[in-house]
């Protein structure tokens, strides 16, 4: 199974599902033109709410990752897989690798680095910046 959201994480299930679809596209597990499972079959397989799957698919379409063809289902778009997601993310990897390496050189543990990234993503430092 490609997707496996965890309802107990505290993160909305539709966001988890979106991340997992994007990840599958980035790694090439899903390629342009590939069809995603239908909303109901996927909801039934994962035993989650069909509205949750529908919401994830709508947002993924909005982000250009998939295309919803009426009556036919959901398909990975050409540019969703290639242009944005895959290449940009791959190009960003050395940036992250360099940052992680420098932090390790300063003696930070991986756990500390992970927490710093999460705090940054949670917008803590951003809010601080706006204030100043």
């Amino acid at each position, binding site marked *: 199974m490609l997707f496996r959201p965890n*309802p107990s994480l505290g993160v*909305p299930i539709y966001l988890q599902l979106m991340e997992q679809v994007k990840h599958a596209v980035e790694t090439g597990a899903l390629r342009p033109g590939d069809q995603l499972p239908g909303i109901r079959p996927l909801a039934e397989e994962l*035993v989650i709410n069909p*509205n949750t799957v529908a919401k994830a698919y709508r947002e993924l379409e909005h982000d250009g990752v998939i295309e919803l063809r009426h009556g036919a289902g959901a398909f990975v778009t050409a540019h969703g897989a290639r242009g944005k997601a895959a290449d940009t993310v791959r190009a960003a990897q050395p940036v992250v690798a360099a940052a992680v390496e420098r932090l390790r050189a300063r003696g930070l543990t991986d756990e500390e680095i992970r927490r710093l990234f999460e705090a940054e993503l949670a917008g*803590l430092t951003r809010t601080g910046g706006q204030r100043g």
Partner: protein
Amino acid sequence: MADAPVIDVAGLQKRYGSIDAVRGLDLQVPRGSIFGFLGRNGAGKTTTIKVLLGMTRPSGGAARVFGLAADAPGASVEIRRRTGFVSEDKELYDFMTVAEIVRFTAPFFPRWRRDLEERYMRSFELPPDAKVKTLSRGTRTKLALLLALCRGAELLVLDEPTAGLDPAAAEDVLQTLVVHAGRDETTVFFSSHQIAEVEQIADRIAIVDRGRTALAGALDDLRESFRRVQLVFDREAPQASFRAAGVARVRRQGRVLTVIASGGAEPILDEARALGPVSVDVGPVTLKEIFLETVASEE
């Protein structure tokens, strides 16, 4: 156009003698949703369900199902005709066999779904010739669910449907609810004190505590709006009271001050920083924590 809610409860009260079982409960259940009705044992869940189905009369407030006042004359019959109900005890005629109770129930419902009956007899592996009283708890629940589903109901009301079931049987029940919710506009309303199953399949929830609705909304919205902000100090954490709205709880523990915010972390971050912590962490709050905070906060 927004549909009228299938279940609409406002200020519901129910008093048994000197006991207030329900003390001002509000509920709006939209059509097609899977609605998790969450609360501790004795919070008023079963009483509310009984009022909805016209099995007991409210002492105050209003309860409407399909737009019908549940305590109006004749409404109960109409509501129960259109509702599949699985009670907490899965009340069934114990002296009948599985096949007999299905044959006995079907003629009461003109929209009886023979196709579903056959499908669930097979997939639930119900033994047609076994007496109902000999069934395991899981099998009994599945039989009750079959009888509720096959009547072609537009609303399913289930009181603690998975109580006492092993994990495999519970998952079967949840999956069946997922399959039916939203299809033909079927609405599922189920009570539970199992937080994990509610967060797995519900799109909307209400947390009821001591007869009142303590919290209600779309589960995704609640997950996105609740945040834990943890402040660490280089000294004993200070006594803090926040002016910002949406502070559900503040807890001091040694050098750590934990704030549960119900309206996102942003509104309280400035005040939090003004306290001079050495670190500020923001994280998600699970439904279990939301539940515990909500239910504990009145104490």
